[in-house]
């Protein structure tokens, strides 16, 4: 089959979504399909350039392909009779983030107009899709709530999951991710000052927001956490990540309404419990409070308490980690099944 994968991109930034599409590309190729990955750059300016990008996504001609699989806004506006959507997320700033800290707001007329336009355009593009899948229950729920559209969840598999291992249950929680407001690393650093044990924290990932970066650094220095918080402000290598995962006490993953998040899967395959929050979205599909990790309120105090519990009762942290590994293996999230459904 001749397949076009069509995605949006933030130039120079590579996150879980990009890795997932690359993995799908490899998996389709392995199965003998002719595949090309197309991407369109997502603008920083949310007004005219964003509307132009939306229009552009509709104008590209995919008629020579048997199947188009689209992932992110506005790539899912592509026009093709065999269009299948596997949605990572919509333009969240006009949906669940609207009128909130991270979203657009009613204060601006242009934002109101943009919200209406995107809502209508999203709905039209969903109506023209052959199948609508999402990567997580969180995304499926959002689409039902905001667009009244039914979709089916296909949890993305983790590539090469056999490379994840557990070597020890050390003294630190590990949080590998892009460092942004929405991932809330600052909240976790703030929690560290409330901990009563000697639990440590390792954050790994690049921060491109200078203000947020300086807030994290200040929080560390003002509370004299230099010896207990390691902040690797860079993209660590795959091997470094595997080593950190293999030796950590548990994983931390506390984003705000994350769509999916591979970190949960990585932690589980490494036999590590995952600490997350009640409003973290995707991880809640996997983490069971007290069994495979802890789910707390998104406050420094609550997070600190959970971190102390993990540190103080290592045996339990280990037990939860092993339960997490069993849980993820039992779910049997495989590429064979994913590809089969995407090509239906």
């Amino acid at each position, binding site marked *: 089959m*001749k397949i076009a994968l069509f995605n949006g*991109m933030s130039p120079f930034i590579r996150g879980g979504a990009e890795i997932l599409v690359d993995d799908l590309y490899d998996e389709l190729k392995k199965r003998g399909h002719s595949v*090309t990955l197309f*991407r369109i750059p997502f603008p920083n300016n949310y007004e005219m350039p964003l509307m132009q990008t939306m*229009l*552009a996504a509709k*104008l*590209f*001609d*995919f008629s020579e392909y048997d199947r188009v699989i689209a992932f992110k806004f506005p790539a899912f506006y592509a026009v093709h009779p065999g269009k299948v959507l596997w949605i990572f997320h919509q333009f969240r700033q006009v949906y669940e983030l609207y009128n909130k800290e991270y979203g657009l707001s009613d204060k601006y007329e242009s934002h109101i107009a943009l919200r209406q336009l995107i809502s209508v355009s999203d709905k039209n593009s969903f109506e023209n899709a052959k199948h609508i899948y999402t990567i997580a229950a969180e995304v499926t729920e959002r689409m039902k709530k905001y667009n009244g559209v039914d979709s089916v969840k296909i949890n993305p598999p983790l590539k090469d999951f056999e490379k994840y291992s557990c070597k020890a249950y050390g003294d630190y929680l590990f949080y590998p991710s892009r460092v942004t407001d929405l991932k809330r690393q600052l909240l976790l650093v703030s929690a560290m000052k409330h901990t009563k044990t000697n639990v440590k924290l390792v954050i790994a990932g690049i921060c491109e927001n200078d203000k947020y970066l300086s807030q994290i650094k200040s929080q560390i220095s003002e509370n004299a956490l230099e010896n207990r918080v390691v902040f690797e402000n860079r993209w660590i290598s795959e091997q470094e990540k595997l080593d950190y995962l293999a030796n950590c006490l548990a994983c931390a993953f506390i984003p705000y309404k994350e769509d999916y998040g591979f970190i949960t899967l990585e932690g589980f395959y490494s036999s590590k419990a995952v600490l997350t929050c009640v409003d973290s979205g995707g991880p809640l599909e996997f983490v069971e409070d007290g069994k495979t990790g802890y789910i707390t309120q998104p406050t420094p105090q609550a997070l600190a308490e959970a971190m102390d519990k993990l540190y103080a009762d290592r045996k339990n942290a280990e037990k939860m980690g092993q339960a997490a590994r069993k849980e993820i293996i039992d779910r049997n999230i495989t590429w064979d099944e994913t590809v089969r459904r995407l090509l239906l």
Partner: protein
Amino acid sequence: MRILIAGSVMSNEGYEEERLVRGLEKELKKNHTTDAFLLPFTRNFLTLPEQILACTLLDASECDMLITVGYPACMIEHNKKVAYLFDAAPHFWEYWDSQYGVLCNNQYLNIRDTVNKIDKKILSKADKVVCGSKLLSDDINKRLDIKTETMYCPAFDFDESDNENDKKYILAESELLPLQRPEVLIEAAKKLNDYKLKLFVPNADIVYKETFEKWVCSEGLQEKIKVLYRPAGTEDYNNASAYITSDFEARRIPNSLIKAVNAEVPVFFAQDCGAETEILKGYGLKIAFSADKCENITDKNIVYMGKNNSGAFKSEDISSFAERLAEL
């Protein structure tokens, strides 16, 4: 410097754009923050203006420099832009009103006029317009009155191999498009006695593919023509007795010809093949033929083709090519 590379890729024609985007990305990453993306392109004459419009609407302002590869990715606007082209909507220009291009009627005239205006408006703002052949360079210079440069594209290697010990074959690579004149390849195969034609088809429209297969059968040439649906690999060039190109007035110099010349494989070329003759200047191992007669395609000519290659074309390596392209 933050460099963004954008390329247009056709599903059934050429792989040079995709390979060049990947090659440039890899090289430029050594010294710059670099990212790259591909855009779909279909030679649908009626949707061409829409596809061009789609490119003009994209926002590439995140980078300090934009390098575009192919048409119509060159329509993405940026205040520091280098556009590299293999061809530019040939059906509206070099193949206009011919059996390979768009028929001259009022509807297409209007589209052609629109495309020409957009080309001129946007390409004239580019800092550099670089063409993969002198013929294309001259065309664009004449049509749009803009300054152009010529840089021949580096060769791209493919590792694919069937581990076969075929030795006596003429190699051809084609997408079986009408403008590549597959009928000439059929005729060429008929002229050979001891040699086979090994035809590599990296991408092909299902209709052209099926038509060609039926044609080979109807001519009883199944033993003579071996079709492989992949690009030719390095070993395929090394073992080839000769290479044949049957293109008609092409502006694109295909990777396969560059590979053949680099590997010093004798070349049969159609007299009217177009830009490909540019890199055959000074190449001793070549014989021209006319597409309607294929008169010089013989076993004897493969054996006796000249051996004087002094001054022959050698393709540039991707590293220096990328540096030169990014120099502004």
